[in-house]
């Protein structure tokens, strides 16, 4: 917790903040934990650790500020510090490398799949979920934060500790990669031009 300002909440206030500001986000937080770890047991542990941590550091939460963003940041930091190392995920790609690769114009030209809305409408199973999970964790994360949770770029920059420009470009790349995956499924489903 880097915030310098610390509140001094009474026990009663702590409980009320926890119940009214933190608990309402528990489903979004679980989903984030699950999409990061890709394992429901790890997700449960990560969620519980995060909520207990949030409670322990409740004095550094300022009432009236965005509780959801504050919680997401703790969860993401816990994931990096405690889970990413032992995660079953094989993706140990150097992130800078991935980023500069996808920054090249070549890749942009290549990734313009002619995916059609009609093909998407036929994806009634877990295709999109599988496609999302198959992305590198950093790309997966920005899609979850933006498209599922509706965070603003500025909030995402704070949650992820990256500049807003990086949020934008990472999202751009993530969306193109997701479309590429979806386009592969669409082809398998028999959409010729998908």
């Amino acid at each position, binding site marked *: 917790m880097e915030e310098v300002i610390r509140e001094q909440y009474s*026990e009663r206030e*702590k*409980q009320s903040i*926890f119940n009214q500001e933190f*608990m309402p986000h*528990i*489903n*979004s*937080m*679980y*989903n984030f934990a*699950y*999409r990061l770890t890709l394992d429901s047991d790890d997700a*449960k542990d990560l*969620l*519980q650790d995060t*909520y*207990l941590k949030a*409670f*322990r550091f409740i004095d550094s939460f300022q009432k009236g500020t965005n509780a959801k963003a504050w919680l997401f940041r703790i969860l993401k930091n816990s994931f990096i510090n405690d889970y990413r190392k032992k995660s079953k995920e094989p993706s140990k790609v150097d992130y800078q490398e991935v980023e500069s690769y996808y920054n090249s114009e070549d890749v*942009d030209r290549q990734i*313009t799949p002619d*995916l*059609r*809305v009609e093909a*998407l*409408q036929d*994806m009634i199973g*877990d295709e*999109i*979920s599988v496609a*999302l999970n198959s992305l590198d964790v950093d790309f997966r994360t920005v*899609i*979850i934060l*933006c*498209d*599922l949770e509706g965070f*603003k*770029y500025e909030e995402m920059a704070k949650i992820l500790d990256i500049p807003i420009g990086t949020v*934008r470009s990472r*999202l*751009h790349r993530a*969306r193109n990669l*997701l*479309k590429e995956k*979806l386009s592969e499924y669409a082809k398998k489903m028999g959409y010729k031009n998908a």
Partner: protein
Amino acid sequence: MNSPDFSKMKKDCQNQRECFEILQSIIDGEATPQQKEHFMKEHLEQCMPCYKSYHLEVAIRELLKAKCSQHAPQELVESIRKKVIENLAQ
């Protein structure tokens, strides 16, 4: 949005990369009202690739929302609540 006259639309977009960035800002609610107005009225209805791209992005987002949100198991929620109350009691 009304369906535009497809036969009069441009088949290619010269600024696809820039357009995609503006389009992304619009969908994410980050564009200024002027940017949005200009793009939606002046460009989108005249440019086939951008028109398609916009509707595809919207559809993907809807699909993500419908298919990728998992709820926390109820017993986990209860267990977290209980642990916090125990914490308070200490």
